[in-house]
């Protein structure tokens, strides 16, 4: 229980306490892991709407005449394809091809890019980007200027619409608008980390508590629930969205992480390109694949995966799927076995339990 006072707090810390949240140390941040209960929160997002404080996420802004060149050079996806107001999921890679982080790149203007990065990686990301800045661009660490709230679920649009004049139904998925929420300037992005429809808003931290409470009131008629990191994790796992430190790390590259779609070889040079090309020439040796438990038991992060009586890989993320009522997970396996339909065993407390690889995502929302 020591060092609790040293944990970083978001602008909503007192708000969470008032809601009787359970707080945990998440990468040096005191964050709510749950309020009413992970299962209830999870299902609120799938069936109605949930509210998440994700203010721990970092923001890095790149400006200048050659902002695009810098973003293009340090990210594996292709930011040149972005129009103003569009967002893109991408990888920030080391020269050796492993992940520094996974990021969301927002094109604010031709000379301004806004990056949303993982909380525990933000300082590292900033230094990494700066170290590669041989362009006419400025890199600013702007995390302190933003609180971030995610409104997620099939009723997210209706909930948020009550507090903004922006026409949310006209903001396409992975696009954003700079407008206002409750009269406060806000970047409203049609993005999320739940596999459900929803929005993420970036606002001034001093307004975060008021807007959070107004969102709770706006969503009350739909049964809105404040949701913690516990539900965030089960939701993203069902949607097979990667979590840094699990599916992606410095020693895993995007091809292995089944994220080849964020690696664009049809653009110019970028950090990590040469290593990834070499990996492709030599052939991938391992890859991420989803699985379901066939026997009783829950696979957890870092459990061993066995094939034919021998250790063959590891679970990167595992747990119960509240939506599907099954126990699911993601694991790394030798490339030839990283396909659906393979019988595997998960070593759970020294006993092998049967599982089988399956197609992913585990859950896909039905689109309106």
């Amino acid at each position: 229980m020591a060092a609790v006072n040293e944990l970083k707090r978001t602008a909503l810390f007192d708000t969470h306490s008032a809601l009787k949240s359970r707080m945990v140390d998440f990468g040096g941040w005191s964050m709510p892991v749950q309020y009413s209960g992970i299962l209830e929160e999870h299902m609120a997002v799938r069936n109605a709407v949930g509210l998440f404080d994700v203010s721990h996420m970092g923001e890095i802004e790149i400006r200048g005449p050659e902002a695009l060149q810098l973003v293009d050079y340090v990210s594996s996806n292709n930011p040149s394809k972005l129009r103003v107001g569009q967002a893109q999921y991408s990888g920030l890679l080391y020269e050796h091809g492993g992940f520094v982080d996974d990021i969301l790149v927002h094109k604010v203007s031709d000379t301004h890019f806004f990056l949303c990065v993982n909380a525990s990686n933000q300082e590292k990301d900033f230094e990494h980007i700066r170290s590669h800045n041989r362009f006419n661009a400025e890199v600013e660490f702007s995390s302190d200027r933003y609180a971030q709230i995610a409104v997620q679920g099939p009723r997210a649009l209706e909930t948020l619409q009550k507090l903004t004049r922006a026409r949310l139904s006209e903001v396409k998925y992975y696009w954003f608008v700079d407008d206002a929420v409750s009269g406060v300037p806000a970047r409203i992005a049609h993005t999320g980390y739940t596999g459900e429809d929803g929005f993420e808003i970036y606002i001034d931290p001093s307004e975060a508590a008021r807007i959070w409470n107004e969102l709770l009131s706006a969503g009350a008629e739909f049964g809105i629930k404040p949701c913690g990191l516990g539900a965030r994790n089960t939701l993203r796992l069902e949607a097979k969205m990667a979590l840094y430190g699990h599916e992606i790390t410095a020693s895993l590259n995007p091809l292995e992480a089944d994220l080849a779609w964020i690696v664009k070889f049809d653009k110019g040079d970028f950090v990590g390109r040469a290593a990834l090309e070499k990996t492709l020439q030599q052939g991938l040796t391992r890859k991420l694949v989803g699985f379901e438990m066939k026997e009783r038991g829950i696979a957890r992060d870092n459990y061993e995966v066995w094939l034919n009586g021998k250790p063959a890989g590891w679970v990167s993320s595992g747990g119960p799927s509240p939506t599907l009522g099954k126990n699911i997970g993601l694991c790394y396996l030798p490339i030839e076995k990283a396909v659906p339909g393979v019988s595997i065993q998960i070593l759970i407390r020294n006993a092998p339990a049967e599982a089988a690889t399956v197609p992913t995502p585990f859950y896909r929302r039905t689109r309106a």
Partner: protein
Amino acid sequence: MSYPETYKYTKEHEWVNAEDGSGTIGITDHAQHELGDIVFVDLPKVGTKLQKGDTLGSVESVKAVSDIYCPVSGEVTAVNELLTTSPEKLNSDPHGEAWLAKVTLTSPGEINELLSAADYQKYVGDE
């Protein structure tokens, strides 16, 4: 939730209800609350001989796995099959319907080393 006066408790948040040389074992309301939504319970086989402090089984919430320690030495005579299909009962009735296992006590004197309901409540601070 009240802590039955007739039960004995451990600092690891298990309870034992000892009667006529046998003991029923469970986890406390405080434990289930700390764990959150319980989704899986792993229990020993009937006939397993356990020493006090041995791992009796494990309880998993959505987020985490927690080992359950055997608060007394004994041989397992029954496990609660209800928890196989309805692990969430541990959240709703941890001191009653959602007991974990029954054992024959091989060292009945160990019971006296455990905490009373009042002492346990004082320990967890939710009197």
